[in-house]
């Protein structure tokens, strides 16, 4: 039933930064490898590569590494709405639950035009303070996502100003043990400064230039220690004046163990480039080590 996400060949075009990080990771790998966190608490990878829900970057760093551990994880996802498809693959490194480096590549199919748009995203996230489960305060992290749209003709034709851009976000997240009739409740709120149109797939900036802080949120309940259900919301700017809509999803995530997770979601992307009613499905497969 699941559509297997195709493995993106462009992941091989890793930037020198990432290669260096991998070397660093290998040097550190005599440290304990990840596995210290409690099942499910790190969430999955969001489609831009950072640890989070499927849609929103969370304050949690990707994977199960704790303060004495390093972790590596990877995820591929497939989103299918009426007139568009997005295939993503992403890799994350987690250093001591303090620093997360991520790299994602996007293949965006514009079905009506039979066109493929490609984008790469390099991300850094730093946990500032807090522990999502144990601190009284929420866990808070600061992140940056640098996006490069390689196929930029469509974006420029629609009025975008740039083919690359940098998002900066601050995320706060907290898990409340037993908060809803004894079930664990997780919330996350993220404020993001961005100029990206449709997350960067239609370039950056535009005639209606309205770069500002956009708000994103997630709410999830753990039905048992392996299954979480929840909702996400992501506000978006409308720099191109194309009635760009905010995004929503309802998801279910399954964490059979600390090495794999499978997530499915119903997504509502609203209007994309004036094409209305873009609703459909999302699946994601993630591996952790």
């Amino acid at each position, binding site marked *: 039933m699941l559509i297997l996400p195709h493995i993106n060949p462009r992941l091989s075009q890793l930037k020198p930064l990432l290669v260096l990080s991998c070397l660093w990771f290998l040097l550190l790998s005599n440290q304990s490898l990840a596995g210290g966190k409690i099942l499910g608490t790190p969430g999955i990878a969001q489609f831009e590569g950072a640890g989070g829900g499927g849609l929103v970057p969370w304050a949690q760093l990707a994977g199960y590494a704790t303060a004495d551990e390093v972790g590596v994880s990877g995820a591929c996802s497939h989103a299918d709405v009426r007139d568009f498809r997005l295939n993503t693959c992403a890799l994350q490194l987690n250093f001591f639950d303090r620093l997360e480096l991520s790299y994602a590549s996007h293949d965006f199919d514009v079905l009506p035009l039979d066109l493929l748009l490609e984008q790469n995203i390099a991300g850094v996230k730093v946990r500032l303070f807090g522990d999502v489960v144990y601190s009284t305060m929420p866990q808070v992290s600061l992140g940056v996502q640098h996006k490069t749209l390689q196929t930029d003709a469509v974006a420029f034709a629609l009025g975008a100003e740039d083919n690359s851009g940098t998002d900066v976000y601050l995320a706060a997240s907290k898990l409340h043990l037993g908060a809803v009739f004894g079930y664990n409740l997780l919330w996350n709120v993220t404020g993001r400064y961005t100029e990206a149109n449709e997350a960067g797939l239609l370039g950056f900036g535009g005639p209606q230039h309205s770069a500002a802080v956009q708000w994103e949120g997630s709410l999830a309940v753990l039905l048992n220690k392996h299954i979480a259900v929840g*909702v996400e919301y992501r506000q978006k700017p409308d720099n191109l004046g194309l009635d760009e809509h905010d995004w929503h999803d309802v998801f279910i995530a399954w964490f059979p163990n600390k090495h794999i997770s499978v997530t499915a979601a119903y997504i509502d992307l609203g209007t994309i480039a004036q094409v209305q009613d873009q609703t459909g499905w999302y699946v994601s497969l993630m591996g952790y080590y």
Partner: protein
Amino acid sequence: MVIHAELLIKLQRNLQDAVVSANFSRAAYGLWWLVRQSLLPILLVVSLSGCATMSPVAPSELPHKIDSGQQADTLYQRLGGRVVLEQLVDNFVKGIAADKQVLPYFAKSNVTRFRLMFIEHLCEVSDGPCRYQGDSMRDIHTGMHINEADFNRVVELLVIAMEQTKISYPLQNQLLARLAPLRNGIIGI
């Protein structure tokens, strides 16, 4: 529901064109959407927890009916009182004994005393009729240099022990919520 949401978005948009601050009202709408959508998982949870209370996990439900002369149920009563806490700690001790990662931390412990003190402690934090009279968490764990991963492993062993004791998932979470604040007196000291 989706069409409904779309209509609302459009209405909201029309309104906010007239208003200056676009971002705030959209964020407020998003928040409202989240709350509305989250009714789905919450309803699921309610129906599931309804099932859980009716399920034959009776050991944790029965005893409190016998000795509940008082008003509201305490967590201690809902867990099943002392009998269940004793079973829980016995399972927990067995789990620790079989775990290479955390067993070294317990090498110098007196198992009989640990068992008794942990039962007392669980009884007290779940509002049972006990007063924990052992040493403080900080005194016990100072110098042990317990890291996050090993702490989390002990939490996992406790969860496994609760499962073995047939304590329901919601009650497991509520007990963990009572224990979570103790973490600061346990790790990294």
